[in-house]
């Protein structure tokens, strides 16, 4: 059981697909129960991963390795280290909560909807646990397809445009990434005469600078579009705004992390020389800072609640990439922690938009106002989410941003200063949003009749709030699991910089 635990967690959603497809489409309740049951089981099964994880052990745990396509050297090779562990836990939790959040929000074509979510879940988990680049690439692409449908079928007004834009953008990035992977694979074969996609072995590849540049930049495009970094971010607002709530939550909380994870897991270790070249670092840091400030400034101008949250993602993910490319322990660990934080807090923010949208069917900020009087519980939850996102001490966002800023400060004071501007702006737009929607008098009569959170909604928010406070108050366990893998990456990059 334990030696296959990771595969079980990985494939459970796909197994759950079978009963789901057998249930007749008109039995909506059974369908919902089935999907939620599978997702909950997935989360519960992933808990032993966290409990049994040994933070002191170096290398990967829960590893499994099986031959898959020997003739090209691809294998089913999975395992997790601390970085993956956090992201896997985030994925199983968010996957379950997003499904739960769809209970009353989606009533149309349920079977397809939940089936796509299950496929999406398996794909995302696969990305985080793959230790074979071929396997990784397959999962990476698998993720795109269900998300296209989720946005395209259950999305808002401009869903078709948003769906195809998301798909084409991210696909273009990922096929170029494939070229990088293939180049690396070929270089390794040239050096060792063995064709393999095994990450551990590919790490031994020595490349000429030009080749490494190619590998780095193709991977960079794939990951940067996913994150998304500044000039590649244009798909994100459309996709986020048009996607149904659960889609936005998964997209923001988990899928964006795939890009950050890619940088940490693949870009830095596989191309350490290029990643530590000063001009590369400067370029990426500049793009990250632009993303932080630009995202925040755009947020200040938004009239659309969901769009605002979407742009705040651009800003927050800028912190993540800035931290990663600070290339020191604080930066990278902070980047990973901030990825989790962003997953928690932005997930909550999208869920919050979802709650009011489900009741009022409007995303206009001006359509609300004074909701705190009508929905007091909701106001509390929103406040926590907002503080968490804005980086208030004792909540998760503070820990992540502080660590990143510390990492960035060690490299360049200017970076740290500019990035802290982003923190201030974040507080500004979030508080202003809160003020416009929650505080003051109730501006629209229709809003007086809005229901407050129900039990199911509480159930969705509580775990997230708990996790946010846990990280904010006692982040040590999280940093503990990150210590070994991040240290290894830092050393590797520093070694490459020589």
């Amino acid at each position, binding site marked *: 059981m334990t030696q296959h635990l990771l595969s079980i967690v990985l494939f459970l959603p796909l197994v759950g697909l079978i009963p789901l497809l057998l249930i007749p489409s008109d039995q909506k309740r059974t369908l919902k129960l089935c999907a939620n049951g599978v997702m909950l089981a997935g989360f519960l099964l992933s808990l032993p991963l966290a409990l049994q994880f040994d933070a002191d052990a170096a290398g990967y745990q829960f590893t499994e390795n099986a031959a*898959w396509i020997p003739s090209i050297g691809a294998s089913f090779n999975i395992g997790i280290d601390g970085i993956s562990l956090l992201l896997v836990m985030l994925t199983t939790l968010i996957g379950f909560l997003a499904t739960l959040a769809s209970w009353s929000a989606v009533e149309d074509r349920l079977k397809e909807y939940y089936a796509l979510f299950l496929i999406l879940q398996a794909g995302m988990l696969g990305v985080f646990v793959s230790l074979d680049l071929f396997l990784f690439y397959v999962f990476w692409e698998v993720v795109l397809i269900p998300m296209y449908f989720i946005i*395209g079928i259950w999305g808002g007004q401009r869903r078709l445009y948003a769906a195809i834009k998301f798909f*084409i953008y991210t*696909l273009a990035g990922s096929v170029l990434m494939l070229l990088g992977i293939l180049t690396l694979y070929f270089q390794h074969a040239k050096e060792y005469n063995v064709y393999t996609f095994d990450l551990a072995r590919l790490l031994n590849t020595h490349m000429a600078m030009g080749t490494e540049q190619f590998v780095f930049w193709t991977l960079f495009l794939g990951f940067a579009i996913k994150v998304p970094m500044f000039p590649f971010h244009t798909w994100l607002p459309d996709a986020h705004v048009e996607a149904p709530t659960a889609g936005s939550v998964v997209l923001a909380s988990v899928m964006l992390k795939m890009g950050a994870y890619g940088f940490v897991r693949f870009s830095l270790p596989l191309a350490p020389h290029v990643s530590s070249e000063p001009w590369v670092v400067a370029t990426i840091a500049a793009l990250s800072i632009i993303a932080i400030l630009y995202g925040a400034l755009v947020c200040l101008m938004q009239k659309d609640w969901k769009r605002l949250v979407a742009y705040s993602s651009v800003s927050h993910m800028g912190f993540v990439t800035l931290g990663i490319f600070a290339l020191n322990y604080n930066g990278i660990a902070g980047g990973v922690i901030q990825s989790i934080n962003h997953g928690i807090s932005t997930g909550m923010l999208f869920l919050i938009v979802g709650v009011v949208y489900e009741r009022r069917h409007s995303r206009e900020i001006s359509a609300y106002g004074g909701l705190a009087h009508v929905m007091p519980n909701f106001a509390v939850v929103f406040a926590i989410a907002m503080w968490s996102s804005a980086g208030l001490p004792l909540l998760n966002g503070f820990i992540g941003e502080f660590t990143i800023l510390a990492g960035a400060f060690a490299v360049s004071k200017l970076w740290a200063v500019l990035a802290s501007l982003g923190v201030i702006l974040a507080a500004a737009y979030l508080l202003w949003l809160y003020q416009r929607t929650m505080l003051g008098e109730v501006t629209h009569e229709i809003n007086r009749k809005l229901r407050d959170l129900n039990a199911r909604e509480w159930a969705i928010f509580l775990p997230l709030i708990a996790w946010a406070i846990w990280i904010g108050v006692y982040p040590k366990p999280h940093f503990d699991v990150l210590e070994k893998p991040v240290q290894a990456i830092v050393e590797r990059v520093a070694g490459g910089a020589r």
Partner: protein
Amino acid sequence: MSQFYTAADNLALKPALALASFGCVILLLEFMLGRARAAAARQWILGLSLTGLAVTAWTLWEQQQALDGRRLTAFSGAISVDGFALFFNWIFLAASLVTILISYRYLEIEGEEQAEYYGLILLAQCGMYFLATGTDLITIFVGLELMSLSFYILVGFLRGERRSNEAALKYFLLGVFSSALMAYGFSLLFGVAGSTRLKDIATAIQSRDLHDPILLVGLAVTAVALLFKISAVPFHMWAPDAYEGAPTPVTAFLSVGSKAASFALLLRFFLEPLGALRDAWQPLLVAVAVLSMTAGNLAAITQTNLKRLIAYSSISHAGYILLGLVAGNETGLQGVAVYVLVYTFTNLGALLVVAALRSKVTGRGIEEDLNDISGLAQRNPTYAALMVVFLLSLAGLPPTAGFLGKYYIFLSLIQTGHTVLAVVATLYVAVALYYYFGIVKMMYMGQAAERASLISSSVGMRVALGITAAATVVIGLYPEPFLRFAEISLLR
């Protein structure tokens, strides 16, 4: 030449003999039985043609066992059966099988239930056999004509439909023109070598001055004719018309069977006799491949007819396959083989769904318009879902089979240092995805039109759908045995 008909000849000929005899019998059945009785025996004719394929499969299997990777040359060098030929012949067999399975119902709807149809399919496959095995100019030429003539008639098989007539005529005129060019090129090659055997031509080319004008003209004209047959740009103009006007099962057969056979011939030609001239033709092939991908993909974006869209996309696929030949290393050739294999099943599957759209309820007129597939997901979720799988595979996304074809092509380009080509080729994947997902958009997010989207399914259809979908998914998820097969076939 001591013996007239040796045991080797017999073994090498068996599949062709099976195809030709079943084909001819079925072709003449209506003359022998009379129209009324032939019409009454429709199901028996279908059974007979499937039996023919079964016998062919058995003979191919026999060859495979007997050869065990060796090369068998028969008829004093006219044909040779090797792993390469067998590989392609299995593909032809799969293509005919699926075509026949989806044709029965289609012909019923069109009111063209004639025995000749099945006979022509078997005979076309017989022609393909000689394209894959032929190592002699005359045999290749006659085999090519057997295939092409059968196809001209099949494309025009809906005699009552003007579009079918016109498609047949256009395909015929350009096909015959390219055949004539090929004959002209062959005549010059014969002059250079003094023999019609490819082997002798290869020797002659190696020993001759490369600037021998006769040789150059001969090669150029032959190459143009070959590019015509695989519908590579700028010799592609027949494909969209022929694909659109032909009965859809014939479109399917044409787009995979004829294409695979033409590629088999092209590969044999470029690798064996022309192998020595690699430096000369490689840049030209690069140009043709890039042009094909560009023109095919860009033209496909604007299409509103499903079959035309698939036709243009198949032009771009020809470009991808040519890239494998451009790379020309082991990976590249294996890529060509894998690509042709997965493309066969995938394209058959996609056109199968298009063929299934045609129903009696729809009434007259072949539209196959994008609108016709609108809302398919609501009414026929299985067909729609499998169509998505086929389209993903055509675009080349994992975990479908199509990804593997692209994988090998990209890898071979990287191995041989064609990085820029690789980047161009990968970016066209995104372009292709755009128009393939235009179809998906219609199926899943379009409103179901009044007259459209009722699948006329039949047992044969479902079996064919099962075969193509299973192949697309299984090759995608567990390709090992297929890759081994392709590898063994090519590395003789």
